[in-house]
């Protein structure tokens, strides 16, 4: 029983892993083409950008909010950086590109944070608003044109071609895997081992109680949204590098898929719960389905429906588990055991 509970994980991570294994086995049985290094590499590659975004969403969900502005921040930061270096014909090196985008993303995130924390407004509405504002400013004042690889700074093109593993004929692993892994580990560590990370959980659990024990709620929330903005910017730059172009019209519109993956990963939409492991698994599951549904003979037009069904199933499992816990209060069961 105890072992089963541990395998299941605090946020049903074990269940999710089992689902992934089932899906993988089913796909392998349905198509011999599935179980290859190529499929695996493609899965990793398509998960990189969603994973970075998902970690930002995870942080916001744990704190009790919902952020839908991160794709707008991501493309704003990445496109502005690339457009500026293109126009100025100045290549700040890839580290410089990341750094500039990061500052822009953090600034936009700070704007979210200040409005949300200072005026205690609902996060969904605020970020819905800022999403529109950021996107609008980007298209109206910075640029609405597609920048092709040929016009981009050399360092970005170099990064696009940097491979970690290259098996001719089978596929490749992109070098951007390294920063993404570092970010995953960093967020995991921060949530677990820093007072800031634990404060995010506390605020998501009960904001008023957090205030009463002396957590600086406003400061923590602003800092959180700055961090989430910076994460979005990094995701945006990676997406430009992997996509070999900078298009201001992309990314916005993908937010629901990302939020779905994080919720599937066990994060609670009511705040206070969620884990990095679950988020990684949730993103992998969604990408696995998006990439490979065709192998099961299901038309790709059903991809969105499949993700939707998964999301509803995932949330139902959580809701049923909570309802069952309520129906059988522990105290009463114990009393019955004593009697028996």
């Amino acid at each position, binding site marked *: 029983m105890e072992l089963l509970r541990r395998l299941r994980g605090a946020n049903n991570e074990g269940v999710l892993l089992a689902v992934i294994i089932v899906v993988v086995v089913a796909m392998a049985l349905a198509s011999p083409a599935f179980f290859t290094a190529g499929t695996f590499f493609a899965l990793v590659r398509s998960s990189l950008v969603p994973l970075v975004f998902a970690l930002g969403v995870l942080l916001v969900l744990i704190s009790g909010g919902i952020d839908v502005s991160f794709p707008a921040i991501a493309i704003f930061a990445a496109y502005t950086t690339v457009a500026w270096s293109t126009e100025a014909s100045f290549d700040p090196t890839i580290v410089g590109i990341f750094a500039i985008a990061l500052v822009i993303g953090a600034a936009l995130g700070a704007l979210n944070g200040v409005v949300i924390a200072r005026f205690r407004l609902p996060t969904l509405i605020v970020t819905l608003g800022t999403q529109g504002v950021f996107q609008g400013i980007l298209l109206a004042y910075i640029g609405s044109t597609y920048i092709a690889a040929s016009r981009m700074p050399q360092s970005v093109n170099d990064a696009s071609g940097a491979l970690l593993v290259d098996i001719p004929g089978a596929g490749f692993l992109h070098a951007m895997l390294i920063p993404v892994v570092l970010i995953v580990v960093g967020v995991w560590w921060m949530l*677990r*081992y*820093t*007072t*800031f*990370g*634990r404060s995010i*959980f*506390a605020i*998501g*659990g*009960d904001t*008023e*109680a*957090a205030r*009463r*024990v*002396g*957590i600086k709620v406003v400061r923590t929330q602003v800092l959180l949204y700055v961090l989430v903005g910076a994460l979005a910017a990094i995701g945006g730059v990676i997406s430009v590098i992997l996509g070999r172009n900078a298009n201001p019209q992309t990314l916005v519109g993908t937010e629901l898929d990302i939020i779905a993956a994080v919720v599937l990963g066990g994060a609670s939409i009511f*705040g*206070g*719960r969620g884990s990095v492991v679950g988020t990684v698994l949730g993103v992998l599951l969604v990408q696995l389905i998006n990439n490979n549904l065709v192998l099961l003979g299901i038309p790709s037009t059903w991809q969105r429906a499949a993700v939707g069904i998964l999301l509803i199933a995932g949330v139902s499992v959580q809701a049923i588990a909570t309802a069952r*816990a309520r*129906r*059988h*209060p*522990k*105290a*009463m069961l114990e*009393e*019955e055991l004593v*009697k028996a």
Partner: protein
Amino acid sequence: MSPTTPVLEVRDIVKTYGGVHALEGVSLSLSPGEVHCLAGENGSGKSTLIKIISGVERPDSGSIVIDGQAHDHTTPSGAIRAGIQVIYQDFSLFPNLTAAENIAMLSELASDRKFSSRKRIRAAAESIVKELGLKIDLDADVEDLSVADRQLIAICRALVGEARVLIMDEPTTALTHSEVDRMFTIVRRLQERGVSFVFVSHKLEEVLQISQTVTVLRNGALVASGPASEHTARSIGKAMTGRDVSEERLVSELPPEAQPLMVVSDLASEGAFRDVSFTLAHGEILGITGLLGSGRSEIAEVIFGVREADSGTIEINGRRHKIRSIADAVKAGVGYVPEDRLTQGLFLERSIADNMVAASVDSYRNKAMLLDRKRVRASIADLFQRLRIKARDVQAPVRSLSGGNAQRVVIAKWLDRKPSVLMLNGPTVGVDIGSKEEIFEILRAQAAEGMGIIVISDDVPELVSSCHRVLIVRAGRIVSEISGADIHVDVIQKRMAA
């Protein structure tokens, strides 16, 4: 009074809100290791006094003396640093974090650490729990623990945060009899270490057992103060309300020819209770009591269709009813005032008037299928007066009402539907003594007109004063039925816990 310097003293505190005196020159002194009972009805100024002591509010005049140092006000963090902590009724814990982390949170934050260590947190929590001789699952999330455990965790957290004065708001309200005993044992242990307590409570019998000193407030003024040994629950109740409150049995016997109104046979609901059979007569007030988790609330939930019955029958007025939903129950003539009236029974932002007719609005249709406003207004005015609701007028939002008045609005809502059976769960939780009396007066009047009333409560004295019969539920079964002159506080408490 001990000769030692008081750890905390407030002198001549005055506080006004928009010209209304919330406190007029209240003084109070607390010695190390003293347990002080602060009593008063809702609106008497208790909460204001606590807010001033804990630094949330600033007094207009007067002083707060901590360790012999006089201040004209404190701040929340200043109060905590001085060792004064408030444990609110909701405990202010984090439901999603483990017991250990909750206990250590305050001291972790106070020491301004950047990094968190599970080992250090665990060790801090373990040492305080061991010191107090408690049994708490430190790795469990707080939301999975009982209310009693949560309270102990809140106490532990305060102690780890080096509290010397613990102010507890309604510390016994949500606890069962044996849990209260357990908490008092710990309070006594802490007293020996010099920790002082201020208990703010309505449940006077319990709090008096452990208090050395009593202060009673009424309308912002101090009306009684002195050693607890010179007071009884009754004398304090009188000081609180300004009138005599009796705890005698107030029900007249049922006439022997009273006809059965509701017959419940062999009712069972998996995981909650089984073999539940009883009858309720016209005009009868039936009490159902038992420990938290005994199944007492679930019985009412099944009769009201909130929860599913696995077997058994419910007969009302000689007709068998299959109750599968709340709508079925309402149609069968059953009304239910739930335990958590604020979230389940009321539309907080709407007016008293809207809430009163919320459940019965269908019956005010006229021929044109529109609302007959004249009739609605007449009913509302009648209920407002009959239930003696204290509010500016019927348009005031329910949120602005005190606990006792909000409860009256819920009761009014059901009375307007004229149910045959009205069930009330914890009807006086968070309601002051004066209101409590009046609420039971209203129920007795309704019963006298033939309504059958079921009161689910663990406030034993109120069951004694107003019930014709009391059923005791233990581990999902009715284990005892007490009626008439046999109904005594001791008898009931013994059978509840046995």
